[in-house]
């Protein structure tokens, strides 16, 4: 069992390593982009290195998704306990109406509220990221059979022991799949966040669109697309190794 889950990690980790090498190897990018766009003078984004852009992107997404996960799981636990059960319909409604809100619109709405830069991007990613985690936490906790909970209580477990020792471990896989959705959405939204001055891999795309330079558009687009696919694969592997 353990051996099989380790096997799955090998290609994922190789891909991560390859990506790290790729974003540091600017000479390779320049060669390929020079070949594709011989007419351009600038082939790479000049204001920041690719590795730095990836780093900015990752910090934004990781911090926002981490806080969103914390908030989503806590709210999800609260509305499935007896004291918070009456808030359950509100949580359901907010998360379903909230998911109708376009991420780009949430991002734009954060600007009049907090100004330009990193802060509104963080706020938007955080708020938007809560919903998938919240929804999956509720689903996961509710899928724990009543008999299991009764058995645990019958063994003399306290409610918090039941939660930490039984319910959360059983719900973990579903919760992690919510974190995966949040992370992938946030990587996409963080790309758009370059338009409000938050940096990241959207910066070369937006800058290339403004200056009509397809070479730096491609630089940012390829790096962003690979980052999203990679993050998705990594979290999927985490999910799988829990099975």
């Amino acid at each position: 069992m353990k051996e099989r889950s380790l096997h799955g990690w090998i290609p994922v980790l190789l891909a991560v390593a390859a990506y790290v090498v790729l974003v540091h190897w600017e000479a390779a990018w320049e060669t390929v982009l020079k070949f594709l766009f011989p007419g351009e003078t600038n082939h790479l984004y000049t204001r920041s290195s690719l590795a730095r852009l990836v780093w900015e992107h990752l910090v934004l997404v990781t911090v926002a998704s981490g806080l969103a996960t914390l908030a989503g799981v806590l709210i999800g636990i609260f509305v499935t306990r007896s004291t918070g059960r009456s808030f359950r319909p509100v949580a359901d409604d907010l998360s379903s109406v909230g998911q109708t809100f376009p991420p780009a619109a949430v991002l734009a709405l954060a600007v009049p509220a907090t100004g330009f830069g990193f802060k509104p991007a963080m706020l938007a990613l955080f708020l938007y990221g809560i919903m998938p985690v919240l929804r999956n936490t509720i689903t996961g906790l509710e899928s724990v059979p009543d008999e299991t909970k009764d058995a645990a209580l019958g063994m003399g477990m306290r409610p918090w022991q039941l939660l930490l020792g039984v319910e959360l471990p059983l719900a973990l896989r579903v919760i992690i799949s919510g974190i995966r959705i949040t992370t992938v959405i946030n990587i996409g939204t963080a790309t758009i966040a370059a338009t409000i001055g938050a940096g990241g891999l959207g910066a070369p795309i937006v800058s290339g669109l403004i200056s009509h330079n397809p070479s730096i558009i491609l630089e940012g687009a390829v790096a962003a697309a690979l980052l999203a696919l990679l993050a998705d694969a990594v979290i999927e592997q985490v999910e799988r190794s829990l099975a």
Partner: protein
Amino acid sequence: MNETRGGSFNRSLPVFAGTAVAIASFLLLDFMSKRPSRISGASGISAFEILEPAEAAAVIGLNLCMAAAGLFLKPPARQKILLLLSCLSLFLYVFLAGRGAERVVADMPLARVFPSTGAWLGILGSAVVFSTESSTLPDRFFKSALSGLLLCALAALVFYGQLDGLSIMREYANRSGRFWQEGVAHVFLSASAVGVAVLVGVPLGFVAFTRSSFEKGIFAVTNSLQTIPSLALFGLLISPLAWLSRTYPFFASIGVRGTGSAPALIALSLYALLPVVRNTYTAFKIIDPAIIDAGKGMGMNRLQLFSTVELPVALPVILGGIRIAGVQTVGNTVVAALIGAGGFGQFIFQGLGEAAPDLILLGAISTVLLALAADGLLGALTGIARPGRRGREEVARP
């Protein structure tokens, strides 16, 4: 006895929390924010500076009434009265925001006024009350009639110019012609993208269902497409399309360019593919084989079986996928404005460029309303297709 009382108190917690937050934020936080001109910095205005005493009393009174109703009333009168009060309160907040803005603008014609935290938290509080009570009221007709009435009342406020003092409406008044033009572009682009996604995705989902050898590949591709950030997908399509139109004059003659609506339509359709494919696949997967056997037993041929048995059962699930795709596409179309495809995103990005918050709000709120409308419309369509009373009659007729 004690337990039931505790239970009903517990039940009312969201009502208490919602109204308490509303009253506290009304008293302590800014009700509206004001900027002396379109692009200058904002300052807050408290409810007491801008509202008449009677108006402020109405807000606080309504919230207290809701809290009292939550404490004392028993179902079913409780839910109906609370729903009614919460709708009244939602209307009151919007109405008073309009009145307040009108007063500021009367003194300072260039000022831009918009509701602030105090008003938004009050609206949230009433929405919490509405959501809590509507979840326990089985009377669907009452709920939809009430929300319909509220929507009509809010639309009337807009129509009769009661909100014209608000910054977003003034921004709209300055560009009403272009607003509708971009709105039509937004709807047209989103609808075409979903149309293409349906034309491609439904057969693809069906193939994934019937040929298991294709299943993995189809899902791997559509899944990856949706994982790629939308802006990156637009970026990836620009160079190949620019190359196509440069190399083959035919493509240039039909309007294919690196930027504009061609890459936007392709990217948006690719993006919308996954929900359609996934739901089509699921729709056929969950059909009970016994129904199909029964149809075969009645002597139906493959085509009859498909059109009279499989499709009517699968349709609501497929429509559910189209609904998800529709809502997502309305949102992603915002990003398409960055590559020159128009739509409400145009206002958002222009507003960001000019540092004009009102223009950003105009674009963002219009997009949100459009997404909610798409969700409601496609949701209603899904509801009609669901094998309810009417659906069954239609299936039984042949």
